[in-house]
């Protein structure tokens, strides 16, 4: 009996390691394919050769290099970091709200970030002090505000699960109407705003990538360090405190993490939904509930999903680009409905 117990734990851990290895390989393959494809198809050997020369610091700056290193590579890295930020923020939200169906998009945090970003974009032309750098800041403020409101409202109800989702839906709707009002007032900036709102990585450049990457990396490291406490938090606030978790500090950290990661992603790429919901939820079914494995798996899964989605978005209907947010919603909404069917009744949504 004892042996079987140890064996099972080992297989669960080794299965997690195996899956993480698989995700890593798949991500690298996706990066390679994404580098190859586009308006100009570059064969894999050439891609590898160019990347290696660039690593040696001998970029030749011809047309191929400009496409590969100046356009496609930063865009892929932005996709990876945004995908991983959204997915890990989703996992953090699921822990914070103790609800496997929570995600930044569902609970209205993406909407709040969008309001902040739209406000900054509109004010940019009116107030000189507000520059492009203010967009992420406004976005973070909007995101954190909504996270806090939903969290405290959702916590006050007796049925935390449904109370949270309903509060999130209400605030999400409020945010959309504020955004709609802002669009109405946008004038000649309307087209830019609408395209941005749909969610896409078409604006990607090295500068944006260099903003997103540290946020994403810091969030991942923070979440890996919080993973043991997140495991304990599964048993509920009271017992988690008894077991040694400072639950209010954990909740504050998760709140900040969700707000900052989501808002940063939204301010750079618009609203890309469902990544934060589907990725952690799906991986939990495979890896199990141990966050020490679930966190890295989720980060990789989010990166992989968005690289693939963005590659499809820019190649499927080329030369027209499909906003990637539309693509993830088309895949994500049915997947969400399926999850509701599967778990909703049992997990407190009834």
């Amino acid at each position, binding site marked *: 009996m004892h042996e079987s*117990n140890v064996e099972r734990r080992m297989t669960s851990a080794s299965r997690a390691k195996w899956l993480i290895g698989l995700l890593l390989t798949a991500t690298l393959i996706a990066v390679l394919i994404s580098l190859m494809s586009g308006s100009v198809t570059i064969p894999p050997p050439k891609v590898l050769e160019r990347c290696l020369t660039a690593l040696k610091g001998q970029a030749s700056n011809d047309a191929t290099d400009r496409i590969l290193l100046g356009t496609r590579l930063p865009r892929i890295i932005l996709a990876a970091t945004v995908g991983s930020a959204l997915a890990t923020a989703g996992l953090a939200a699921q822990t914070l709200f103790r609800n496997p169906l929570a995600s930044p998009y569902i609970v209205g945090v993406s909407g709040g970030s969008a309001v902040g970003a739209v406000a900054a974009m509109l004010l940019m032309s009116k107030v000189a002090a507000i520059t492009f750098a203010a967009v992420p800041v406004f976005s973070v403020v909007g995101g954190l505000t909504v996270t806090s409101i939903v969290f405290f409202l959702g916590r006050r109800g007796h049925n935390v699960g449904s109370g949270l989702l309903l509060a999130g839906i209400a605030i999400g709707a409020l945010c959309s109407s504020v955004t709609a009002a802002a669009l109405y007032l946008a004038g000649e900036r309307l087209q830019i705003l609408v395209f941005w709102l749909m969610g896409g990585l078409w604006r990607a450049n090295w500068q944006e990538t260099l903003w997103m990457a540290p946020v994403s990396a810091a969030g991942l490291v923070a979440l890996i360090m919080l993973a043991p*406490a997140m495991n304990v938090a599964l048993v509920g606030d*009271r017992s988690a405190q008894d077991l040694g978790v400072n639950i209010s500090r954990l909740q504050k950290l998760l709140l900040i993490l969700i707000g900052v990661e989501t808002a940063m992603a939204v301010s750079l790429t618009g609203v890309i939904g469902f990544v934060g919901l589907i990725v952690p939820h799906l991986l939990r079914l495979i890896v199990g509930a141990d966050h020490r494995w679930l966190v890295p798996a989720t980060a990789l899964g989010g990166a992989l999903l968005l690289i693939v989605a963005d590659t499809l978005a820019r190649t499927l209907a080329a030369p027209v680009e499909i906003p990637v947010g539309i693509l993830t919603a088309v895949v994500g909404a049915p997947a969400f409905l399926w999850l509701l069917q599967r778990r909703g009744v049992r997990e407190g949504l009834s």
Partner: protein
Amino acid sequence: MTLQAENITFSYRHRQPVLQEITLDIRPGTATALFGPNGSGKSTLLRCMNGILQPQLGRVKINGGEIHSMGRRETARQIAVVPQDCPADVPLTASEMVMLGRYAHWDMWGQEMPEDQTIVRESLARLNATAFADRPFGCISGGERQRVLLARALAQQAPIMLFDEPNTHLDISHQIELYRLVRELADEGKAILMACHDIFITPMFVDNAVLMRSGGIHAAGPAAEVLTPENVKAVFGASIEISWRKDFSFSAIFT
């Protein structure tokens, strides 16, 4: 490790005090049962003793040091709590649940030590819970869940243990098993405080009893001296006379 409450008074948001001037000493090697009707403040007292609630007056001390200056993790290394229940939707197996008891002993990366596995196995074995160690916590019976929660508290390896009505979901034979375990743990040197509803069988296994009534201590001391017909009548409003014999049997007269 001695756990002491010194004159603590506690109220939720400035309403009527739930606890009034409670003084209590829980010493190593003794088991103390906490009796009282529903709403008399038993659970609130346990949560104050555990440092989760901060009394407005008085203090709670572990070995002379104030509990409120200790972090949650440090407290959890000193005090283990056996809750009344746990949500059944926790997506963990029974043994993973017990492993959570080791959290307070981990470093910041949450690296499991080899001895953690051994401690988890031994805790499960002591509760006869090995058979369902690998089953999901949500798929075992209420009594089995309670044994898993007990094993988790054992895995915490804290010198002080608090029980919050741990017998609520147990049938009579498992209740007796629980009381035996409590006795064993006290004999091994643990300091134990157990909130409990059963005034008939529990007193045979504990050293001291505390009778609470509307937030205050009505009587405290050796169990047989505390549970007199007068005290029971005053606290519970029930006319019962109980007498315990050395051979672990008791008789009760309901008048």
